């Protein structure tokens, strides 16, 4: 490569003062001007720390010991400060909601110029220019509450590009976006890369989603070390993904199931470059035909039923219109739709947090209109997305016991029931631990345990796997599956297509307060209309089915799901 490196790590390591071990070890890495790089790795691999080192949050906000050298634009980064660095590296953080500083789009984009004391006329002109680049120029006076997740992210991007930085750093840009918006985000990043010679660095663990567009190199981190610096074709052909616990693209998994040897000659790095010859086609078709369809044994007992439910927070502004569905005992299903489609409102109505305007809710064929929040919680449990919003006791035992204590259950019975739940949740060894010592996934389990202890027959979870890498996702979901197998009906509010595909045979889809579909997940994910209405995207399995000449894409996706369940069950 004849271009000069813009970022150079030499024997770089970093240790937070609060940690006993270094988070990054012996990092040697060169990134060239104009490159597009993905930094992948599971949670705790050090990829976010690496990002913090680049943008200066380390050592500006997070203190620790740095060894070795990191040069950005030939200047040693430790000799710069965060303000100087922010002129060459612009960072788009993962939580677009939380980092929206201004009260309107224009103001937020201008934030950096305000801090540079730029005069008002020049500032306005530049804001207009940059807003146009990300297609937000019609929204300049909108407040963050009026914007979608994607629009917020584009505002952040504009706020960073206003400085005309050389390097754009995206820290988990897909974490809080629905699949369709995530896809657009990757396309926007791609377009910016094409149109300018900016260096792009994307920190993500969702490989398949990032590989929707070309990247030059993928740097894989694991346990604080770089274990691969590789192009995408070689990466998916290797065993690195399996070893580090990064999810491989679904079409790759399907091809492997069909007994196809994945190698670089197939150009398997992106589905758009994947070459499929006749032999491969045959193999996939044979595999497809060989799969035994799984019969779903269904119970006949209706556990929940919503009939003609309408609801509005503000007068004359209905957020749910005439919703009706039935759920049978022991089901595991997903409730999907864009932000604001009414998913959470349904959960709130079921739990009694809000009161339905019209319609009836039945639990085991009893009308539950007159049941209080507290009474409903013994039947229908609700787990919030953010465990920090639920944990109120310092010790795990007390946290789990709280619901029983507040119901004046006797001390002995509490002990027995808490122990039982902690056993199920795999938290028994931590019974006497403080909550603060737990990891995010463990905290999540504690919140689930604290709801399960009341012995509800239905469990509703809001985005249980948001922001989790593949390993933690699998851990949480397999755990929920186990709970489901004990007879608890599980309803999941989610954006995650993998989750729908792998764990919930049935999906209820909402748009603008209307129930538009209530069917198999495999049908939802292969119906263009529903995909569009719910801001989902096509799964790559759908494309694979088309590429291999399988006519019934839905059936192919369903077979994949069944096959995978059988593999996992073994």
């Amino acid at each position: 490569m004849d271009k000069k490196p813009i970022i150079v790590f030499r024997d770089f390591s970093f240790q937070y003062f609060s940690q006993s071990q270094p988070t990054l070890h012996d990092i040697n890495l060169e990134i060239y001007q104009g490159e597009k790089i993905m930094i992948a790795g599971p949670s705790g691999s050090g990829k976010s720390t690496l990002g913090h080192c680049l943008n200066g949050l380390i050592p500006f906000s997070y203190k620790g010991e740095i060894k070795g050298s990191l040069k950005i634009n030939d200047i040693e980064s430790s000799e710069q400060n965060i303000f100087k660095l922010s002129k060459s590296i612009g960072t788009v953080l993962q939580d677009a909601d939380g980092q929206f500083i201004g009260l309107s789009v224009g103001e937020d984009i201008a934030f950096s110029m305000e801090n540079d004391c730029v005069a008002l006329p020049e500032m306005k002109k530049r804001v207009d220019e940059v807003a146009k680049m990300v297609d937000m120029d019609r929204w300049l006076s909108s407040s963050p509450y009026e914007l979608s997740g994607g629009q917020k992210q584009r505002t952040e991007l504009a706020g960073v590009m206003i400085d005309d930085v050389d390097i754009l750093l995206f820290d988990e840009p897909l974490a809080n976006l629905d699949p369709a918006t995530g896809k657009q985000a990757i396309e926007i990043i791609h377009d910016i890369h094409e149109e300018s010679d900016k260096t792009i660095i994307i920190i993500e663990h969702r490989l398949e989603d990032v590989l929707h567009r070309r990247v030059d190199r993928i740097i894989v981190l694991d346990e604080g070390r770089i274990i691969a610096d590789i192009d995408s074709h070689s990466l998916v052909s290797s065993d690195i993904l399996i070893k580090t616990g990064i999810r491989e693209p679904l079409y790759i998994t399907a091809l492997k199931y069909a007994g196809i040897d994945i190698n670089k000659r197939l150009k398997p790095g992106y589905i758009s470059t994947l070459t499929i010859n006749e032999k491969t086609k045959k193999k996939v078709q044979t595999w497809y035909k060989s799969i035994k369809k799984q019969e779903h044994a269904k119970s006949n007992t209706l556990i929940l039923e919503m009939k003609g439910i309408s609801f509005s927070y503000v007068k004359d502004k209905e957020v749910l219109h005439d919703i009706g569905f039935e759920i049978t005992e022991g089901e595991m299903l997903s409730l999907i739709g864009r932000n604001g489609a009414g998913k959470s409102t349904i959960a709130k109505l079921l739990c009694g947090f809000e009161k339905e305007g019209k319609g009836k809710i039945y639990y085991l064929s009893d009308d539950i209109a007159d049941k209080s929040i507290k009474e409903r919680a013994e039947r229908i449990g609700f787990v919030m997305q953010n465990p920090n919003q639920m944990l109120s006791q310092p010790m795990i035992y007390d946290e789990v016991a709280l619901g029983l204590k507040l119901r004046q259950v006797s001390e002995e019975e509490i002990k027995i029931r808490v122990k039982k739940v902690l056993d199920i949740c795999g938290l028994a060894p931590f019974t006497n631990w403080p909550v603060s010592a737990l990891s995010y996934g463990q905290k999540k389990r504690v919140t689930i345990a604290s709801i399960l202890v009341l012995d509800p027959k239905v469990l509703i979870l809001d985005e249980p796997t948001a922001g989790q890498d593949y390993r933690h996702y699998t851990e949480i979901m397999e755990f929920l599956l186990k709970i489901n197998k004990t007879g608890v009906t599980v309803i999941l509010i989610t954006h995650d297509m993998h989750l729908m595909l792998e764990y919930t045979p049935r999906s209820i889809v909402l748009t603008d307060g209307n129930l538009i579909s209530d069917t198999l997940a495999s049908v939802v994910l292969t119906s263009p209309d529903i995909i569009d209405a719910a801001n989902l995207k096509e799964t790559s399995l759908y494309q694979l089915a088309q590429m291999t000449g399988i006519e019934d894409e839905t059936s192919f996706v369903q077979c994949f799901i069944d096959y995978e369940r059988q593999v996992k069950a073994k």
Partner: protein
Amino acid sequence: MRIGLFTAQKADSFVHRLSGITKLICFLVLTGAVMFSYDIRVIICVMVFSFIVLKISKITFSQIKLMLIYVVIFLAVNAMLTFFFAPGYGTEIYGTRHVFLKLFGNYDVTSETLFFIVTKFMKYASVIPLGMIFLLTTDPSELASSLNAIGVHYKAAFAFALTLRYFPDIQRDYKDISQAQQARGLEMSNKAKFWDRFKRALSIILPLILSTLDRIETITNAMDLRGFGKFKKRTWYRRRKLTKEDIFALLISLVILTATIIISVFINHSRFYNPFI
């Protein structure tokens, strides 16, 4: 969802169009005028004026109902305390003593004290609508830029604005957390004992603090990364140029202040208006 107590409303009116700086200065000037003068005639004029402005700024009664109730209670308590601690204060000021109503001991209700208390009540009652107008028609960012314009350090001004900006979010978090805790079995009725209520509050506030700290960390990082605090000064995207309307509003406030001072100096020869001589 309920709108926050101090959330600025988007609307178009003469008052909304004024720059934040204008509104802040007008508010301070008018408050100064009312605080300076104890002439009930002047005060009533300002009060009428402030209610007219309240009307112009399209603020509805329901928006300020809650605030008004608190203010009236506060003022009533204030008036009573003034009487009980200094029943003869009116005589001290106005130099005469007309007993209006005989109570026990030296607690006679004199016309002078009553007049003083009514004047004081009116003073507050005329300033408070102005404050409400200012808060309800100025959004947090403009507020910050105006505070900065009159000499408050921009970091302090920004911190204040951010607090207002996040108020609705934290309110929403509070609602979610409290609902989740009710589902756990927390009794929200007021029948509970004090100690139980204290524990109840704690089990909502602890998660609220934790999730708010998360928010703060994110926003701090975002602000650092975009150069907040780099220089001693900063400019403001939302600062508006002063228009004719602004000058007009400023002039009116100055006229009112000057008139108040002239009346005190040349007509009353004191800050008090004395109808008893």
